[in-house]
């Protein structure tokens, strides 16, 4: 079984290195095919491992030593238990689809080979992240996906910086840097968590740490829980570190599908799920509850921004943010398997949604404004079906995947008596349905506004559409086929979360309530946009609309509160402090020595009577000093 672990882990790396060999040469189809094939191998290995884990329990293996100093020993150790196996299958499934899809999507791009090299490197890092059996290994993957994300957001690095009114992101390279730096802020928290774990347990492996949790004191556990969660907030773009995710949409769409929807951004959720012995400890109850409330807040906050956005990809990005909030809400309330289940379901339907958006962009020559689309269902039937399905799943309509996963989260909120969370998530479910179908209708139905712009949209080639099919199927069946087995399987690692009897009794009421609000969201979207775009000047000039379309002015606030002052302070430190104070003092001392030497040279006249004068003055001075010190001393 160890060999399967390594096959699953290293196949993407081999693919990445292979594609990198062609990195600077013109497009070569082989890079796309080879990386996709290797990912498929990795997927097969992951599925076999999953089956193995179901039957025989976790597999673990150690590759070699990494860092050893003092009492610290970090090894490259990997373990595949139920949680990891699920993550691996989700990651490799979506990645394989995205790779094949990208062969079509990146067809005309001159960075074709480079793209596949980065994309496979990302998958490798993501697998390291989920497969490591220790926090240092997790951190390798954590930073690795960060770099790949940087490379891929900034993939079209040659684009110029253009400032826009609403979106602060001025170019792909700007967005890439923003994402990297913002993640690094969170990574510092994560590092502190790692240090705390090391100095209190002497090791960084999950097992040692989890085993010593019962003996650790409460304050320490809270500190570790907070530090690790700060790390999770960066990767999963939770408020206030959320702005990078929407800007990351500057990257190619397959990247958004894979990294910024299905996998990397869920790493924070994975961390909380993985560290469930910590977060479910009674001493850190407060932190967990905070996670749940923050998640709920982000779910609603992000959904409101999606309501008015006109950018096809940004709407989906906010929706991702919102769904991550749902996952954190579930994890914070202790329903880890529910969070993981929503993570998996979301990965499938959200990747599908993004890839569909990619089809639309491809057809519309990279036009992103949904106000300029409309009526595309006639020319892009399959894309319409896919995006429609994905949106239904996202809206949580029975019997699609999102219905099961999201509904369970709402049930958990009821079960925990956190009615505020339930209410907020319930409202958000309505918002979600509305913005999803606002997007679908504005894109696919109504008047064909794109014609005025001279676009001639066309559907993607068939193999691309077929490649998307697995995601579509999973988005449909994942809930009702897999939910029960998923719960049973993950309960080998995660605490079993059981609804109370009372919750069971009344669950149907809430299911109906949720379905009702989702349906009314869809209906409202249909009423407003089903027939085409009717712009309402009054609404668009209202305060709330402006607030939302400017993302609550948070990016602008960050820009004026952090980015600009940082530059100004840096400039001031250099020009005023370093040059004018620190260095000037050094030069002044040197000048003084030079000056005094220069002036005292006047004493060396060679004239004996001058020397006598100086000597007399000196003697006098010494006499004065001596007598003074005698008197005073």
């Amino acid at each position, binding site marked *: 079984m160890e060999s399967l672990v390594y096959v699953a882990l290293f196949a993407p790396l081999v693919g990445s290195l292979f594609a990198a060999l062609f990195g600077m040469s013109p497009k070569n189809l082989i890079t796309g095919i080879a990386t996709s094939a290797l990912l498929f191998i990795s997927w097969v290995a992951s599925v076999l491992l999953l089956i193995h884990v179901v039957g025989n329990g976790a597999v673990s293996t150690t590759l070699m*030593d990494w860092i050893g100093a003092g009492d610290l020993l970090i090894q490259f150790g990997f373990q595949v238990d139920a949680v990891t196996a699920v993550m691996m299958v989700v990651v490799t499934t979506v990645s394989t689809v995205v790779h094949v899809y990208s062969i079509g999507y990146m067809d005309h791009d001159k960075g074709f080979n480079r793209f596949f090299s980065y994309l496979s490197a990302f998958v490798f890092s993501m697998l390291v992240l989920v497969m490591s059996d220790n926090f240092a290994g997790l951190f390798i993957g954590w930073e690795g996906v960060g770099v790949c994300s940087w490379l891929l957001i900034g993939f079209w690095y040659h684009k110029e910086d253009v400032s826009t009114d609403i979106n602060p992101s001025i170019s792909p390279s700007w967005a890439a840097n923003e994402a*990297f730096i913002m993640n690094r*802020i969170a990574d510092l928290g994560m590092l502190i968590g790692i*240090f705390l774990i090391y100095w209190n347990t002497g090791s960084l492996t999950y097992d040692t740490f989890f085993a010593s949790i019962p003996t650790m004191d409460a304050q320490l556990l809270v500190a570790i829980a907070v530090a690790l969660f700060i790390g999770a907030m960066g990767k999963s773009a939770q408020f206030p570190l959320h702005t990078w995710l929407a800007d990351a949409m500057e990257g190619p769409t397959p990247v958004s599908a894979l990294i910024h929807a299905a996998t990397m951004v869920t790493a924070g959720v994975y961390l909380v799920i993985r560290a469930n012995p910590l977060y479910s400890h009674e001493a850190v109850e407060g932190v967990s509850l905070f996670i749940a409330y923050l998640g709920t807040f982000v779910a609603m906050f992000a959904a409101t921004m999606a309501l008015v956005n006109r950018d096809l990809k940004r709407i989906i990005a906010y929706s991702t943010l919102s769904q991550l909030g749902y996952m954190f809400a579930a994890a914070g309330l202790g329903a880890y398997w529910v969070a993981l289940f929503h993570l998996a379901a979301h990965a499938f339907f959200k990747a599908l949604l993004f890839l569909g958006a990619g089809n639309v962009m491809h057809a519309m020559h990279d036009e992103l404004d949904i106000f300029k689309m409309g009526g595309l269902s006639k020319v892009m039937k399959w894309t319409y079906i896919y995006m429609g399905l994905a949106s239904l799943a996202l809206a949580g309509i029975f019997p699609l995947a999102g219905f099961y996963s999201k509904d369970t989260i709402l049930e958990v909120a009821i079960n925990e008596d956190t009615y505020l969370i339930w209410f907020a998530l319930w409202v958000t479910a309505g918002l979600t349905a509305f913005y999803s179908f606002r997007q679908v209708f504005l894109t696919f139905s109504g008047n064909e506004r794109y014609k005025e712009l001279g676009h001639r949209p066309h559907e993607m080639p068939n193999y691309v559409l077929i490649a998307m099919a697995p995601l579509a199927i999973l988005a449909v069946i994942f809930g009702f086929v897999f939910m029960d087995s998923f719960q049973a399987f993950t309960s080998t690692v995660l605490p079993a979360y059981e609804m109370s009897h009372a919750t069971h009794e009344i669950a149907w009421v809430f299911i109906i309530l949720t379905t009702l609000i989702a349906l009314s969201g869809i209906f409202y979207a249909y009423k407003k946009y089903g027939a085409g775009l009717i712009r309402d000047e009054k609404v668009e000039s209202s305060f709330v609309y402006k607030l939302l379309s400017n993302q609550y002015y948070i990016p602008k606030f960050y820009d004026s509160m952090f980015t600009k002052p940082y*530059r100004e302070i840096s400039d001031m430190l*250099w020009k005023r402090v370093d040059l004018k104070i620190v260095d000037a003092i050094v030069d002044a001392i040197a000048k003084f020595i030079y000056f005094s030497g220069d002036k005292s040279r006047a004493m060396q006249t060679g004239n004996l009577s001058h020397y006598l004068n100086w000597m007399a003055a000196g003697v006098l001075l010494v006499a004065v000093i001596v007598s003074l010190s005698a008197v005073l001393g």
Partner: protein
Amino acid sequence: MDHILTILVFFPAFAGLLGFVVDKGSARAYGIAVATIELFIALWLWMSFDGSNGGMQFVEMLPLVPDFGISYYLGVDGISLFIVIMAALMTLVGMISMSIEKDVKNMIISLLFLEMTMVGVFVALDAIVFYLFWELSLVPMLYIIGAWGGPRRVYAAVKFFLYTFLGSLIMLVGMLFLAYLYHDVTGTWSFAITDWYALVLPMEYQVWLFIAFFMGFAIKVPMFPFHTWLPYAHGQAPTIGSVILAAVLLKMGTYGFVRFSLPIFPDASVMMITPIAILSLIMVVYTAMVAYAQKDIKQVIAYSSVSHMGIIMLGVFAMNAEGISGSIFLMLSHGIVSGALFMLVGVIYDRLHTKELDNFGGLAAVMPKYATIFGIMLMASVGLPLTIGFVGEFLVLLGFYKVSPMMTIVAGLTIIIGAIYMLSIYKRTFFGPITHDENKKLKDLNSKEIVSLVPLVMIVIWLGIYPKPVLEPIDNSVKALVSFMEKKAQTQEAKDIIVSTNAGEDK
């Protein structure tokens, strides 16, 4: 091999002397040949080195002035071994990449002399021998900056020389006083560092001596507020000068703290943790911000060096094996990465004759190989895991966390602000459209540059993934050092701090 260290020290200088008769046209090839042989001797030293032994090996001892206990006394341990190898490597790589046409022969000879002094400093076990090599290293560097530098080279060279010379004079006074104290206690004179280790000093002497040595080392490092000579030196030095300066010469300062200050003045060192840590934190944060404000790419790298040296200083004063080992490892990794970065800056300077960031932009499109290698070095510089930069930085921060969590959080800002200035220069250099027409025709790396940079890339990745062959011998020597300090410390307070910083929960 009884005299491998002597050979290692004097072979380059000897070859340098012979270099005067070598034909001008082949001086460069000659220099590269000599540096290659030197590197192989250094690698051979590593092969014959017993990594599990934390003590001094290949010791050579020859009394020079027996009346004053001055002797020709050399040896290496895990702490110095790899710095020596790194010095030999960077000299070779720097020579290969060198693009200087003017007076090549003089340059080669200066570099070979410089190599002698660098190796000498790190293997000397006698304070006077150490001091001689330490001061001698200034001369070739003064010449390199003064003869091949930019428009303000004389100012920069003199500033570099006088500033560091002043510091070392104070250190020399400290050394003489220490020898005098040794004589006072034992009745015999000795300048052997290992003899000084055995000397138990009263606290007040320790503090004054610590300060005297501190002046010499701190200016060399350079620590805030003594760092202002460095930007000028880098700004004016030719590429090869900057490479050697950043990669090796700065390490003399931090090495000095490990070799002298910690074991000879353990109590004073413990007492000085806080003040030194504060200066280090200022180095880390302040110079990283100053780096961000720079308009000249070379100045960014220069200031970033100071910032990283701050992390190294912090590791030295973590007082635990994790921190000190990490700090030695970071010296190596910073040597390789900053050396490579200066070489990379040299690449673009050779082509455009400017270092102003505003003149770049969009270079990734025309120079993809250059952009790739720069990108890898950038990631190593910001401490990405699986590159060489992570290992040392992680260990230092981990180690210092035990001393002070609050200070470590401040020092940890380095992973954020380091990324800010590095990503910012990368974007301004490589991303966006090409705004200057003359940049559209730039040539990518030539074979000379590739030959010199690719080995560094390989080391960056190799030691990032598998640091053990280097880290283990370092760690063994550091553990010996730490337990020695623990035994030697006299005040209970110092003892307690050394013990507690080293203790994990499970012991």
